């Protein structure tokens, strides 16, 4: 610890405040929607499975909420044999 740091002690409260504001903005956006991706995954899977035999593990649904744009990403790997 340098001698200077004794006199310029960093204030920690503003850091706490900023970290909380960022974190809570993110957590609030997810509030109540945490299960949405799982629900979508199940329903999408059910629809596709009606027509194509697919592997449950090869379906991936990802929900990203940004401040400007939110994206819903659905990634389904088709089995090589299935040609619809």
């Amino acid at each position: 610890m340098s001698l200077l740091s004794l006199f310029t002690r960093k204030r920690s409260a503003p850091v706490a405040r900023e970290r909380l504001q960022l974190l809570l903005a993110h957590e609030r956006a997810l509030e109540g929607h945490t299960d949405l991706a799982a629900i979508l995954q199940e329903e999408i899977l059910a629809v596709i499975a009606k027509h194509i035999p697919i592997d449950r593990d090869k379906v991936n649904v990802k929900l990203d909420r940004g401040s400007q744009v939110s994206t819903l990403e659905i990634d389904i790997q088709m089995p090589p044999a299935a040609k619809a």
Partner: protein
Amino acid sequence: MSKVMVVTSGKGGVGKTPSSAALGAALAQTGQNVVIVDFDVGLRNLDLVMGAERRVVYDLVNVVQGDAKLAQALIRDKRVDTLSLLPASQTRDKDALTEEGVKKVIDELREKFDWVICDSPAGIEKGAMLAMRYADLAVVVTNPEVSSVRDSDRIIGMLDSKTVRAENGEKFEKHLLLTRYSPARAARGEMLKVEDVLEILAIPLLGIVPESEEVLNASNVGCPVTLHNPVSAPARAYMEAARRLLGEKLDIATPTAERQGFIGRLFGRKAIA
């Protein structure tokens, strides 16, 4: 019209039980009929904080399960005769409580008391859910510290979605009680300020309880701080908070740090607001 008020926080150790005891006693001291219900089944402590640990015969679980009548389980406070306590069970677990059972007990308590204060367990599990389920309003106890503020935010979200009132689309009143606030540390920029916490959580402020040795002194001897040392800073903060709950409009003064001289700072004397 009786009111059911949950004292909750999400995080443990922020002062829910001492705050339930102090607010309950303060309300009872104004002549209101008050019961404080301990919902922390398996880890009861309200009895100890209230100094009634040797008077527990029946508890909330006994009443919910029909093994005892409500009147048998209620413990009347020896200092304030309008104050009662309904202890939690120490030997059972949270699954011993059911939603219907709790509703029945709360409805019965509503008929007997002006205030039913539900002292919630920490966490967001069944016990905490049942404590808030039938409430009309909530006191969210928060420390000016990151994990406490985050958990309070989570609990506020639940109060707005998981309570019967919220489900019926009714207004659910929430109040922030900031505890263990150290004005000296906030002034030095080492602790979140009152305004910071209010801005982040965005619910109205009920009171600011300064960090004080009197809170521990009171729980050591099993007495709500408002009765143990009524002139102390935390007792005054709780009494004013109780008056606000009764509808009085009182300004909330932010505790300020006692100015310390050089010698005081050198020896690290605690500033008492």
